[in-house]
């Protein structure tokens, strides 16, 4: 388990955007998994299984936060649970691929855009586009139908592009 902890922490950080919350999430995961160590040793691929458990803990926390008057900061400007297609009308499609290629995709801009991305969008982009989980694997981890997952991934990418475009404008204003 030890060898996976840092990788799980990195996932948690990308989801939460906070060292404190990422560490909390991993801590909760370990507490939950520790009694099942013997069972875990039998698993061929521990990481996806652990990621699935961590994702469930994360979603439970998000639900609690949403039900709570105390929020962890302004995130999730797009409702991640919104059905596919809804809400896309107001989404600025953002720069096209050619524009993206022309722009300098600075790390700073990307990090700022990522920070403004909704947490569920971060999860799906993190797991699919960064960690290379396949869609069927991801559907299992997130426990959602494949179609819903595809829509969510599509919206997450669109939203990220939109935020990157906004960052470009902000950066231009700064200059």
């Amino acid at each position, binding site marked *: 388990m030890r060898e996976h902890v840092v990788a799980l922490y990195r996932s948690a950080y990308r989801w939460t955007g906070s*060292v404190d919350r990422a560490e909390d999430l991993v*801590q909760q995961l370990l*507490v939950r998994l*520790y*009694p099942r160590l013997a069972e875990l040793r039998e698993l061929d691929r521990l990481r996806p299984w652990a990621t699935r458990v961590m994702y469930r803990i994360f979603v439970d926390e998000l639900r609690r936060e949403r039900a709570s008057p105390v929020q962890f900061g302004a995130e999730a400007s797009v409702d991640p649970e919104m059905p596919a297609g809804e809400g896309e009308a107001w989404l600025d499609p953002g720069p096209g691929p050619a524009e993206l290629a022309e722009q300098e995709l600075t790390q700073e801009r*990307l990090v700022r855009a990522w920070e403004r991305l909704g947490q569920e969008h971060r999860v799906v982009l993190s797991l699919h*586009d960064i960690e290379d989980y396949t869609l069927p694997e991801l559907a299992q981890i997130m426990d959602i139908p494949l179609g819903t997952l595809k829509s969510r991934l599509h919206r997450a990418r669109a939203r*990220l592009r939109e935020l990157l475009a906004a960052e470009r404008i902000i950066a231009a204003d700064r200059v």
Partner: protein
Amino acid sequence: MKGKDEIGLNVADDDFQTLRQALRRMPTPEPRAGFVERALARAAAQPRSQQAESLPGRLRNFALRWETWAGAALGGAVAAALTLVLLRTVDTPAVSPQPQLALVLNEARNVDVLIDSERELKGATIRIVASGSIALDGFDDERYVDWQADLERGSNLLSLPVVARTAGKGRLVAVIEYQGRTQQVAVDLTVVEPKTSRS
């Protein structure tokens, strides 16, 4: 050559790969120094109740009681204090002054044993021996039960369910074994006949 990714985006046209590569290079801060060790240690310290799930039947419930009482304030039952001194060079068991407790025949009561450990003890063996007029509730046919548990640094409270089976003297002994060293605490109990009212 153009290709499509899993959701059908034309990745070459879309140039999403550029963004994807940038995402992969996105920095993530390392966890704080020592986080992994701390997190694993905390996880290991938590699951006494879950560790007990591997224990068979009645012992499982008994061990769960340990978890329930750990860290709780002393209740109304008798508490016996045992200090584990791990640097002790002599291995002879140190027996604390024995508290006394009276039970009425057939009375069931929890006897709390306070175990004060100077440091965390992972995988200590706890053995409970009930003799004489008393028995551990649910363990009438067994002279002792033992199991392994992690003791935290500081106070650990073990609540032992005792039942008075016959009138007379009884003794309850909790033995802690750790890395070949043994310490114990004992509670003497007297079981008395219930008072009968005269008409």
